[in-house]
């Protein structure tokens, strides 16, 4: 097999049907934040929150974006939805470049691209009724229609996410976290978007509720043909909803492939460590202790990332070259998906299938 450069050719070995062109293509997305220090407020340093991130999302499919706190995955989400200014790179959505669009020109795009946030307690305006919350995007785009028509739309949306039409008159504080997240999803669906950016939509929820919301998202995807950018901080959450997986560490993508490739043939040590952390649900396999990879140390300060490979400070395979050369995201092993490591290897350890 030849080396595949990514993202366009990363699809080797994928058996899923897919339409010809991607809905969203992100290329070399970079986002830096200035850090102000001192009384004069000079920009003394910059934090590289996201560095050269590239991926594609196809219509009706899901890309799972996984990483620890501070990996830049939420920043990526905010850049794609243009809630943050992009430092450099390109974001092509439905054939249109978004990276440098003005806020005014971004407005028509937002119809087709919506976002759901992590914290169900801060994502709904406490002073609005559920009806007003869900109706807001409709009103902004003049799609609310007359009163009867608008209310009917809101009721349909509520039922679509598994709530009652009678909930429309209530306020957010009357609902649980899971219900609030459903309301957020209803708001995001109001304009019938093609892409939903889900920024850790279930991380704040109880485990039992997580599964319900995840299942709801899958059902909605099947019914409406939605594409998802599904962000999570562990691989277990995205396993069952994703078609593609990108693993981020300190602002960079370190491994990228189809869900099968990443789960069965992880080649980056970080991916392997994340996979080994998933509790083994299969009783036929022994959960050997020595298969677990426990990462030592903390995630380094993004304002002062390690030279070369950013993962090297916590990697058990680190060699002198890792401190000097930043590894490219390429398919060195020729197994069909790329990873950014100088010493990639197929590692069975900690991989559950």
């Amino acid at each position: 097999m030849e080396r595949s450069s990514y993202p366009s050719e990363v699809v080797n070995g994928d058996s899923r049907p897919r339409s010809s062109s991607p809905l969203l293509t992100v290329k070399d997305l970079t986002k830096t934040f200035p850090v102000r220090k001192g009384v004069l407020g000079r920009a003394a340093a910059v934090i590289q929150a996201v560095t050269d991130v590239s991926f594609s999302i196809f219509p009706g499919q899901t890309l799972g974006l996984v990483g620890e706190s501070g990996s830049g995955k939420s920043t990526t989400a905010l850049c794609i939805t243009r809630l943050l200014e992009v430092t450099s790179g390109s974001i092509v959505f439905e054939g249109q470049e978004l990276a440098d669009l003005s806020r005014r020109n971004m407005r028509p795009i937002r119809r087709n691209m919506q976002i759901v946030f992590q914290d169900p307690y801060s994502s709904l305006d406490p002073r609005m009724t559920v009806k007003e919350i869900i109706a807001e995007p409709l009103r902004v785009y003049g799609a609310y229609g007359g009163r009867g028509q608008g209310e009917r739309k809101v009721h349909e949306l509520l039922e679509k996410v598994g709530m009652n039409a009678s909930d429309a008159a209530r306020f957010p504080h009357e609902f649980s976290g899971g219900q609030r997240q459903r309301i957020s999803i209803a708001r995001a669906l109001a304009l019938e978007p093609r892409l939903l950016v889900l920024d850790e939509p279930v991380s704040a929820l109880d485990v039992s509720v997580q599964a319900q919301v995840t299942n709801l998202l899958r059902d909605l995807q099947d019914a409406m043909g939605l594409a998802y950018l599904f962000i999570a901080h562990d691989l277990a959450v995205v396993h069952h909803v994703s078609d593609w997986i990108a693993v981020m560490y300190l602002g960079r993508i370190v491994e990228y492939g189809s869900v099968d490739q990443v789960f069965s043939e992880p080649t980056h040590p970080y991916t392997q460590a994340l996979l080994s952390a998933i509790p083994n649900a299969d009783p036929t396999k022994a959960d050997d202790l020595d298969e677990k990879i426990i990462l030592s140390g903390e995630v380094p300060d993004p304002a002062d990332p390690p030279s070369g490979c950013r993962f090297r400070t916590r990697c058990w395979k680190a060699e002198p070259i890792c401190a000097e050369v930043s590894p490219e995201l390429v398919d060195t092993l020729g197994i069909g998906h790329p990873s950014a490591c100088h010493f990639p290897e197929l590692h069975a350890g900690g991989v559950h299938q």
Partner: protein
Amino acid sequence: MSSERSASPATPIHSRVRSGSRFKRIAWRYGRNRPAVVAMAFLTLLIVVAIFAPLVAPYDPVGQDLPRRLEPPSREFLLGTDAFGRDSFSRVIFGARVSLLVAFATVALIILIGTTVGILAAYYRWLDGPLMRIVDLLMAMPPLFLLIMLVALFGASTGHTVLFIALSYWRTTARYVRGQVLSLKHRDYMKAALASGASDVRIFVRHIIPNISDGLIVIATLSISFVILLETALSYLGLGAQPPTPSWGGMLADGRQYLQISWWLTAFPGLAIFLTVMAFNFVGDGLRDAFDSRSAKAV
């Protein structure tokens, strides 16, 4: 950067399940505060009396009756008469008109300027610097000095009183609003509104103002008491409502000359100011306790 903590519920469980309208809950909590209820009743009465002053007052507030000057309180003249033989009680009633009118108008202006400046400064970073420099500039000047100077330079009138008190005192409200909006800005529902394509004006009107309105109501109520104190001080110094219009501060200034012989000319107008200001303070505190929102607690 992104918030990736496992989110903790912002509200305790018991408050998540409560129901009933917000207004009813607030009214119920307010109702348990005795002094606040009494103060509210007093103010309602005062406002009604001020509006219907010509019907309530027993005498013409500017009608002179020199033979009966400086009479002590009696059944005929409840609060006595002044140096021109005018009935103090009627003058106190009419004086309420000036004080309340000036107070309401000024506070409306203060809230308007303060909220606008505060929202703009917090929302548009490039405006923050210049706007806050103006606030600093005003902060550096003793407000009463500024006020007296402006009134003295441009002439004393009710309109000038309103305008210049507002100009000298909007800064506190602006600072409060700015602080509130800065913290609101990072709530996800603001980002969600942006992601929904909402315009800035829509975000101000539909998301920001409703979320700070509790605090603004408390500030407005407390500011009324503050403005009444200022207005009466100005009138006392001769820079407020001009004679013969009866005003509480003006009555005190007139009474000062007769401090040695007519104590009632000093006691009663002052008492009117004191009670009114205190009532507004009680109502303001009562409202702050009755509201359960962060914006009200932050006042």
